């Protein structure tokens, strides 16, 4: 497989992806228009609302609403710039923090002004990202808000918004049940804005008017494609066009895994024609989530992929909610049995039944993500499911479903090395 690259769709004038290699320092960032005065406070909340900026962490929640919810509450407020990228198939947040730390800091400071917060936490687990942000902060002085890097243990659930708040409050980085949400009660019990770092990276352009457009997002493209990497992509083009134009597919894909591990599978034919749009994807029973797209090729069996992903959910859930630790284990068991050719119609009926009864029964979205995998395997690949009910699958026969695999994990070091350490080595 070729080394991953960074790039942009041909129709895009990149705002987030840089044209050159290396890590952007303060002077480079300021030359590109960074840290310039712009809208702040309520004016910025209004501008973000009008720009219809939606959260890039996975939930696509309108940032203007979130800003307004925190700003409207009495007393002190806190901002958490969430860079804990728990989704194994996504690399964008680590790339941003490692490569463009000033863009994220600038965005977080503007969010702090919008919600009148005087404390910002940059919440990460990637050590190279933490070093990059600390090095960037050392280049700055006299900030309008205190900015602190907060390092957490990595984990699938550690980037969930209440897990971030719990970690900063000195508890394990595991989700809480809602309500309260962080905007009501967050860090030190204060109203807290938790926002993904890519979302925040859109704020400087909106605040200064330099780049009010929010029409692109960062896509981690991986799996069976000719050129995996991190790409800036316009919303609205089809999944097929994006995958073909970004290095090519090298054959018709069997399917796509959407939004990290969260938004489920699409079969190749249907996925090809769907637009990269939060609402259309949701209406089609899929999602953009964190923006990652993993291509399943001829060597990938959808049933085997689903079994591996469900095994991951069964292993990596936080072990808190009974419906989740039981439900993910049960679905993983049936999916592995199906892939290995031991499942029958009663098992498939149980899988269908869990897909109906389990969504929404966890404190966070982990159980829903697992259900999305099971539900979309059944919906998008009925012929493959059927074939596994009738006999052994040659591709799955060689797979160890009990192995601790992290399928299609992105490789941040291959996309952007630990640039701070490299610079220090040069010095």
């Amino acid at each position, binding site marked *: 497989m070729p080394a991953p690259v960074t790039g942009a769709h041909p129709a895009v004038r990149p705002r987030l992806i840089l044209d050159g290699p290396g890590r952007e320092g303060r002077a480079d960032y300021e030359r590109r228009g960074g840290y310039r005065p712009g809208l702040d406070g309520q004016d910025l909340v209004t501008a973000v609302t009008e720009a219809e900026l939606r959260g890039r962490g996975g939930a696509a929640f309108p940032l203007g609403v979130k800003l307004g919810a925190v700003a409207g509450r009495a007393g002190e407020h806190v901002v958490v710039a969430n860079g804990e990228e728990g989704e194994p198939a996504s690399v964008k947040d680590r790339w941003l923090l490692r490569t463009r730390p000033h863009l994220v800091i600038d965005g977080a400071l503007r969010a702090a002004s919008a919600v009148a917060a005087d404390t910002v936490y940059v919440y990460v687990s990637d050590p190279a990202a933490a070093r990059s942000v600390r090095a960037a902060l050392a280049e700055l002085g006299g900030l309008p808000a205190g900015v602190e890097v907060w390092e957490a243990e990595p984990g699938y659930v550690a980037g969930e918004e209440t897990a971030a708040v719990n970690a900063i409050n000195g508890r394990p980085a595991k989700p809480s*049940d809602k*309500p309260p949400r962080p905007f009501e009660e967050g860090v030190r019990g204060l109203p807290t804005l938790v926002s993904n770092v890519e979302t925040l990276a859109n704020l400087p352009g909106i605040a200064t008017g330099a780049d009010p457009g929010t029409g692109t997002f960062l896509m981690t493209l991986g799996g069976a494609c000719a050129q995996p990497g991190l790409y800036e992509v316009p919303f609205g083009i089809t999944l097929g066009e994006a995958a073909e134009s970004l290095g090519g597919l090298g054959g018709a894909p069997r399917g796509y895994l959407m939004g990290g591990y969260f938004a489920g599978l699409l079969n190749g034919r249907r996925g090809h024609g769907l637009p990269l749009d939060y609402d259309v994807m949701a209406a089609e029973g899929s999602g953009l989530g964190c923006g990652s797209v993993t291509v399943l090729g001829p060597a990938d069996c959808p049933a085997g992929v689903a079994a591996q992903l469900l095994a991951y959910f069964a292993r990596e859930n936080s072990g808190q909610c*009974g*419906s989740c630790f*039981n439900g993910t284990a049960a679905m993983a068991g049936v999916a592995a049995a199906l892939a290995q050719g031991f499942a029958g119609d009663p098992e498939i009926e149980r899988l269908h039944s869990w897909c109906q009864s389990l969504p929404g029964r966890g404190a966070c979205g982990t159980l829903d993500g697992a259900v999305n995998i099971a539900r979309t395997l059944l919906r998008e690949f009925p012929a493959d499911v059927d074939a596994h009910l009738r006999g052994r699958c040659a591709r799955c026969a060689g797979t160890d479903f009990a192995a601790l695999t992290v399928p299609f994990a992105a490789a941040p070091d291959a996309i952007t090395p630990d640039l701070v350490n490299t610079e220090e080595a040069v010095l």
Partner: protein
Amino acid sequence: MKIKIDRTMCDGFGKCAEHAPTVFSLDEWGYASLAASPDVPDELEPAVRRALLDCPVDAIVERQA
């Protein structure tokens, strides 16, 4: 009365669904979620209050309306 279940606390005792089966739904392993709105109708409030007091792990919380 307005309630929530903290699903991270629930240990699947199922007392809540015995007292107020229309308010609390159990999954097939016995773990509870709210079956309907967190706003409890007045006529169900006595049963929900018993469920709240009977929950061995205090997973049911009364919220400010």
